[in-house]
């Protein structure tokens, strides 16, 4: 059609050539590097935790028995007398004198029968009064199932620490879930905009209080309160109940803010549908909005549990300083994080038993929170409703 062609020809030429936008490129590169950096940091942390934990599990730890040999022995002696002080080793165990490893084959009274130069170590003479070390191999199985944690006595069961951690977190979530959810429902479904704009920041201030303050709050307020309610004899000065309740208060803003966001994200149209059927506010909030926001609330709770598991300062101050395998919340029991902070607070030499053990505990903490995060992602995906 000539008319169209004529119009086309009369249009001015426009350059569509690609332009080099330097600023865009630089910004894009910086953003990419930031993302890359955070990934590297995460990988680095996992590497370090894994490496140090492997040192713990993959290597014989030497426990000092405090038992010396009575007389000097030559490089070829296969039996010797030991002193009657210190702890006995049993046949089949690897022992160490200076740098030489020996396999203990039999024990008769105070006589040790040994195989010299074990594991390719060099048989050398040893002086009288040389202290015997006993070799202990912490196994993953023992670590996960043992009910006693005393690395220097060869007991590597993490259960007392894990149990205390789970108890504190459990108590915390028992406090935070009902209160946080109630606060979220109030803020999202009942509060006037004015009340909400006042209350929400106040609630969020709770999240800004330093955890050390919460620790002393537990120790100097919550514990005396519990003791006055349940009795001085029932409640120890350090106990997991007090720490758990205070951590519950600490994670309350986390539960309530994320839950409130989840409730707010439920479309208005669903509320209108419920009201239109003659539902009351409570029926609408509890039976329509709450279930519709389930995935978000579940995610909030799981994040809060992760936070409670990782919380350190409150338990270090208020839960007790010494592993104890107890289900009584009024007794002192050290949590995983509490143990790490106490052990690493003193002089800690590199590659020592304590040093390696805290990495093993740290790795376990990491695995727990990672598992919770993966679980929360699953919940969010599984239960999320898509509204058009």
């Amino acid at each position, binding site marked *: 059609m000539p008319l169209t062609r004529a119009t086309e020809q009369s249009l001015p030429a426009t350059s569509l050539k690609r332009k080099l936008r330097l600023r865009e490129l630089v910004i894009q590169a910086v953003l990419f590097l930031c993302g890359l950096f955070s990934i590297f940091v995460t990988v680095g942390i996992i590497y370090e935790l894994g490496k140090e934990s492997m040192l713990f599990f993959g290597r014989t730890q030497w426990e000092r028995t405090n038992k010396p040999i009575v007389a000097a022995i030559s490089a070829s002696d296969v039996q010797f007398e030991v002193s009657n002080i210190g702890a006995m080793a049993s046949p089949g165990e690897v022992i160490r004198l200076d740098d030489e490893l020996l396999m203990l084959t039999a024990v008769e009274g105070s006589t040790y029968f040994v195989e010299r130069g074990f594991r390719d170590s060099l048989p050398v003479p040893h002086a009288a009064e040389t202290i015997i070390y006993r070799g202990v191999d912490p196994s993953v199985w023992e670590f996960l199932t043992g009910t006693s944690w005393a690395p220097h006595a060869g007991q590597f069961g993490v259960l007392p620490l894990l149990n205390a951690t789970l108890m504190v977190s459990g108590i915390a979530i028992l406090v935070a879930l009902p209160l946080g959810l109630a606060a979220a429902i109030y803020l999202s479904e009942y509060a*006037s*905009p004015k009340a909400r704009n006042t209350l929400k920041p106040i609630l969020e201030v709770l999240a800004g209080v330093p955890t050390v303050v919460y620790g002393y709050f537990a120790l100097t307020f919550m514990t005396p309160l519990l003791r006055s309610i349940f009795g001085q004899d029932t409640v120890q000065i350090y106990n997991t109940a007090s720490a758990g309740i205070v951590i519950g208060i600490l994670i309350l803003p986390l539960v309530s803010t994320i839950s409130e966001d989840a409730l707010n994200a439920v*479309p208005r*149209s*669903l*509320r*209108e*549908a*419920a*009201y*239109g*059927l*003659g*539902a*009351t506010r409570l*029926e609408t909030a509890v*039976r*329509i909005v709450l*279930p*519709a926001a389930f995935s978000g609330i579940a995610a909030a709770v799981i994040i809060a549990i992760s936070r409670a598991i990782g919380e350190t300062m409150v338990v270090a101050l208020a839960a007790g300083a010494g592993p104890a395998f107890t289900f009584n919340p009024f007794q002192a029991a050290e949590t995983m994080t509490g143990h790490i902070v106490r052990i690493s607070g003193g002089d800690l030499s590199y590659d020592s038993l304590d040093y390696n053990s805290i990495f093993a505990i740290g790795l376990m903490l990491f695995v727990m929170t990672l598992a919770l995060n993966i679980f929360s992602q699953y919940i969010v995906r599984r239960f999320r*409703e*898509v*509204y*058009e």
Partner: protein
Amino acid sequence: MTDTAPTATATAAIETNDLSIYYGSFQAVRDVNLDIQPNRITAIIGPSGCGKSTVLRAFNRMNELIPSVNTTGEVLFRGQNIYKPDVDPVEVRRHIGMVFQKPNPFPKSVYENVAWGARINGFKGNMDELVHSSLQSAALWDEVKDKLDQSGLSLSGGQQQRLCIARAIAVRPDIILMDEPCSALDPIATLRIEELMRDLAKDYTIIIVTHNMQQAARVSDRTAFFSLSEDGKRAGMLMEYGDTKTMFTRPEKKITEDYITGRFG
């Protein structure tokens, strides 16, 4: 019915006296006097922003879910002013149900969607029977009878809207308000809903807000035409109200004719 007020004198399903609605200080609807006939379909038409939906939502006090809205005048349901301070809006909504512009089924099963409203209203009878009859009334039973336990959100848009109608019917209201119920649907789904409305009008009073004049002409018995006030204050006013046939063939006012013939809107 829990009310004690006289009902025999009322002949209109809903009657408004000088109904005005304000958003903050802005008067969105001015002095509406309207009586809705029982068991009829009344269409509310008018250009965008003339307060059609606002008037509709005033009939079951849905406007109060928006904090800044203020309503004056009277809305009489069976002779009782539903805006009297001692009237419970929850009770009002149990008698005057609503279907919304966009289908909004609950994220629950098809069965639960229908049963929910009846259950919270204390329905004690045979729930399976109620779900069945409500879905049948909404012309949806045959399509969903094998997927009652599937999520209501898994249905198509038109099915979702009929599910919302079934849900409203299950509460056994006297009046069903429909706020542009077909605006999010394709023409075939729209046609099904319109047929359904004709069926429902045998048992219910239906008030429908629609943008679509053909729809008003097709389904309604009576039509109320709203438009903006001509004093520049942009308040919605009832311009003309009467039998649909009369209104679409011999409108009384020029503005109605202009709107119906598509000269503005």
